[in-house]
């Protein structure tokens, strides 16, 4: 039972931030694509913006590892 709960906890630790990251990136990506059509010089800014929400899932992954250990 404990193993099951640990596995579920680790899964949630990665899964929920992954959903949040995906949702944030969808918003940033669509807005970024629209901006790029008008201002191609914003490429680097948009790449950075797009990579920012990934911190959530990366930290979720780290937490999942700590749960599994």
């Amino acid at each position, binding site marked *: 039972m404990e193993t099951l709960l640990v596995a579920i906890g680790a899964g949630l630790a990665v899964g929920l931030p992954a959903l949040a990251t995906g949702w944030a990136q969808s918003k940033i990506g669509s807005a970024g694509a629209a901006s790029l059509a008008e201002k191609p010089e914003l490429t680097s800014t948009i*790449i*950075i913006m797009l*990579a*920012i929400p*990934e*911190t959530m899932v*990366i930290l979720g992954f*780290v937490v999942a590892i700590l749960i599994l*250990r």
Partner: protein
Amino acid sequence: MIVEMCRVRIMGERDALPHVIESLQDIGLLHLATPPQSDALMTYKLDERQERHRRYLRRAIQEVDYCVEELHIGQTQPQAEYAKCTLSDLSRWACLARRVSREVGRLKSTTAELEEERALILKYRSFLSGFEAVLAGDIKWSTAAVYTVMLQGEGADPVGKVREGLETAIGDRFELRSRVLPSGGTALLLIAPASTATEVERVLAEARVEDIPVPVSFGAVSLAPAAPRMLGRLSEIPAELAKVAEDRAELTRRYGSELLRARACIHDRLDELEAQPLSGVTRRAFVVEGWLPVAQRAEFNERLGDACGEALMVSERSEEEWEDDEAPVVLHNPRVFRPFEAVGSLLPLPRYGTIDPTPYVALFFPLFFGIMLGDVGYGIVFAALSYGLMRRSRHGSTLRQIALVGIACAVLSTFFGVLFGEFFGDLGHRWFDMPVVLFDRAEALQSMLIIAIGIGYVHILLGLGLGVRVARHHRRQAIGRGAMAVCVGLVPVTLLSMLRVIPAGVFVPSWVALGISVGILITAEGLIGLIELLSALGNVLSYARLMAIGTASVMLATVANEMSTLVPVAFLGTLIAVLFHGVNFILGLFAPTIHALRLHYVEFFGKFYSSGGKPYRPFAHWGSSYQPTA
């Protein structure tokens, strides 16, 4: 590093100004700046004759640029070398540009008309060829009218609705044929008695049909008489387009090199005229100011002296007389770091007086990339691709810089691949029992996490240290940034001593030092400093991505190898493995690049980078580029 600049002032007799400006353009080192305003000094204004000449050249250069761009001359012929030109050259080139631009414009519009005609005929080709005989016979009928229209289908069976409408209006006295076009919509051919024209046109108007257009070259005729000739045009148009292309090539051959020379000389003359109003004048004297690299000050003085004699007075303005923000910026780094300027070039230039991050990027970018990819196989493939790109790119081009950065990243990836014992994931271990030198990334996640966070600490502390250096002229800001650096450094010491990883005796002193540092930080920067401290500590955790991306990469590679063993046919298994490794390799290039960039731009640069530098653009001959020297 940012090249050290000095601001020089050149003074002389007013009559000598045009010659001095010409000499400055020949020397090509001075970035012109407006002299400070004063009651005695007026801004130089072009007289009426010069202004008229400037406008004339501006019109001429627009036509020359148009010709060069439209004929793609710059791409096919070498740039013109600088050569002196006379006034008669300038007017001859202006006439030439007018003549060639008119011809280029005519060829351009002919091409556009032919392309449009071809597209139109191709769109209706199935309709035209299907009903060619009927359309050709149109003119022989005296009691019938032919309608050729386009129906944009809305709802189910739009043609059926038109048919129903016609039956209601004129009974069965019509013939309706339709053809669905590949590009969408339906073309209709309707033949009805001429006496029913009013009813038919009402039905068609209600169905919102559009007339099928006829190409402009056929004049104002309806489709029926034009249709037979339109299909024949399809075979004629390519020959006409080829003739236009030949005419363009002939223009390029005849006038290409002359136009390039004209472009260089007219731009030069215009720059020279437009540079004069940047000087200040009195009734008898002029003042020109500008920036140049300190290392080239002696060379500049010597060349200006040779060109203009001793009548000029050249002096350097002291640093107290100008602000850092005014000075233009040019970067000059050792050869080995130079390709990494491309990484920083995605951001605006750093301000003068701050720090050029290129050397730090050159150190950490390949390191981060290598840790994340960390595979001998992928590293070798990446190195080969980067080497190929380097061979194909021009020396000094952005592509060459990217290729060199790629090679550095590939070398580090291979190095870390050896440390982690990875060759296309665990393939090295399976095939030739490749040893793990440091640890297995797939297993030792915690060790990898600790290393990633440790690297993050070093990187962030370096960034904070550089921030202190940038703020050295602003005491309060420098103290605040220094206190933050100490706090960030002390937090792990305090935590580790609390957890007894390091001697417990360190705990109290480090705790006290941390408290004092936080106090100084709040005093210097207020509560916002505390928030920034928490943000900096959060930034350190962000380096966990070095571990996360790497682990994801090695797991995917292992899955690729596993998948291949599950298939009984060896060839299929190999194919699957190659496919999976290909996908993983592409991901392995993109993800580490983006995340290494992000760690630099957000976490590292955020601590010290101050953008907003103006690029150094020396007043020089058109097309010449400045190469900084040490």
